[in-house]
């Protein structure tokens, strides 16, 4: 059996979110198992299953090089631009 990662949309309008994993022999079985394992309490309206082996992930050892540079780009955020009080709710 293969390991599948399970993603569930809790309700329409929301993204699919990773909820966990399970074992299945084929994608159809993975979907059915995901329905029975992860939506027993009305947790979802849509399911994605992805074979765990098919996921390419970033390397945590490179996380500083990858993600820290975004920290000083404060001009990307609206709070970087002070406004006069009269128009402050822009």
């Amino acid at each position, binding site marked *: *059996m293969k390991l599948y990662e399970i993603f569930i949309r809790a309700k329409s309008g929301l993204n699919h979110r990773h909820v966990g994993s*399970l*074992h*299945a*022999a084929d994608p*159809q*079985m993975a979907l*059915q*198992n995901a*329905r*029975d*394992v992860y939506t*027993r309490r009305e947790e979802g309206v849509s399911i994605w299953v992805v074979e765990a082996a098919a996921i390419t992930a970033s390397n945590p050892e490179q996380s500083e090089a990858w993600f820290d540079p975004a920290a000083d780009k404060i001009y990307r955020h609206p709070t970087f631009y002070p406004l006069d009080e009269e128009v402050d709710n822009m």
Partner: protein
Amino acid sequence: MKKAIKHYLLRLADSSLTQSQRLAEWCGHGPFLEEDIALTNVALDLLGHAKLFYEQAAEISEQDVSADDLAFLRDVDQFRNPILTELPRGDFAYTTLKQYFFDQFNVLLYAELMNSQYQPLAEIAEKALKESRYHLTRSRDWCLRLSLSTAEAKQKIQSALDDLYFYTPELFETDDQLKQLLADNVMPDMQALKQQWQQQVDQLLQQCQLQAPTSGWLATGGLRGEHSEYLGYMLADMQFLQRAYPGCEW
């Protein structure tokens, strides 16, 4: 007509309850964890259907009885399920094929019962149909998986087919009371249903490359309260507390 409706509600309730009881025996013992959980979901759905049918039967009963009284205080000769659903759980192939026959039957039946002139039955059928459709998807998929894989699995499901096949015609059995209900548009024509069912089953068996046996004991009698030896043991187990401590709340 009330009497006939109650009779039919018990037929439906007893079928779902006995089928559920057997499936529930897998809980904690399934072939792998995911399947353990999935089988229990089906058992829970069927138990839910049984409860609705029993409640309706209790509601129209002339005596003051509850759904639990009907499930736990009737003896073998008062149960109305076909023998198929009381058969032991067997191995996974046996459970799977039994479930497939039952699911295929229920999906066709409930689709018809949704149009029943007896409104409470139509309502229960609508709910039960949704769940049964999912059950059917699962049991069909498993029939294919077991049939078209290893020699061992194929042999097991073929052997289950040999054992179970002649229990299925009983699903469509009727009696005078049921014929009256057909005339009153409460339930569908079981012969027509049987044809549809047979067509679906033949198709799947062909896909699965399985051979239906040509002869065997043709099961009959559940509707009249004539059952196999298995039902008595099932009831002894299921009804133990209610029988040993009569009149208690639980």
